[in-house]
């Protein structure tokens, strides 16, 4: 019972704030709403019993990425500007398409998944299991993906720095050192 109440709370938070995030006229508000959505999603993970995932979501997503977002917002906007909205017909059309998509997928979901409810047993994975799976090389173990993730992160770091650095012509410092 409590589970259901908590769920509905979190669900309402998610839906309301996600819709607000995409319709707000101010960027910082949009970012804040996104933060709330992410936190609520973390809560949903907790409800499902994935504690590790919850932790990761909070720390990486809600913590790291959101901070990145806010910083980027402040880097790329002159203060005080409000974002402009698009022409009316585009808004209507995308609304229409989104609703259409929603209905389509909703119909598929309704047709295929309505009967499933939760199992009785609650088997959450322990940290030891997660750790072994993350670094193992057997079946259903994710060492390769893990290593590739690390390489991907490296590539993204390097790429982001490379793309965003200032070139000599922009900054008038002759002693700019290469990174």
């Amino acid at each position, binding site marked *: *019972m409590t589970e*259901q109440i908590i*769920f509905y709370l979190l*669900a309402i938070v*998610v*839906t309301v704030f996600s*819709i607000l*995030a*995409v*319709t707000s006229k101010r960027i910082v508000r*949009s*970012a804040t709403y996104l933060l709330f*959505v*992410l936190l609520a*999603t973390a809560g*949903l*993970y907790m409800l*499902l019993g*994935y504690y*590790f*995932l919850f932790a*990761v979501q909070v720390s990486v*997503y809600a913590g*790291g*990425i959101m901070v990145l*977002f806010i910083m*980027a*917002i402040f880097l*790329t*906007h002159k203060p005080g500007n409000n*974002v402009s909205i*698009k022409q009316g017909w585009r808004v209507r059309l*995308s609304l229409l*398409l*989104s609703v259409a*998509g*929603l209905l389509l997928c*909703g119909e598929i979901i309704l047709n295929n*998944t309505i009967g499933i*409810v*939760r199992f009785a047993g609650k*088997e959450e*994975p322990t940290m030891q*299991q997660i750790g072994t*799976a*993350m670094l193992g090389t057997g079946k*259903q173990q994710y060492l390769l*993906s893990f290593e590739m993730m690390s390489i*991907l*992160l490296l*590539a*993204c*770091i390097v*790429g*982001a*720095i490379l*793309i*965003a650095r*200032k070139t000599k012509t*922009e900054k008038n410092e002759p002693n700019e050192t290469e990174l």
Partner: protein
Amino acid sequence: MGELLINNTGVPVLAYQLVSLIMFFAGIYGFFTRRNLMMILISVELILNAADINFAVFNRYLYPGEMEGMFFALFTIAIAACETAVAIAIIINVYRNFGNAEVDNLKKMKG
């Protein structure tokens, strides 16, 4: 729908899925409607998150002993982080070149 609250069987899959569905399409709507690049990025994050919830839910409900869905969600979060970093780098570049971070500026690939 009334039994959803009264029964002791827990939250049905359908509910989780509807949540993620709404989040997903909100993200899509935002992607097409927004003019500012940062807002488009926010919409993309919404989409990714919706997919993550889906993974986790299916893993929990259909394959309780396995962990694949959770790991997938984990990796998706990591990838989202990378992608956000690179995207912000690009947006900063756009801002430097055009003075504002609007998607209308990116018209050089015409024809």
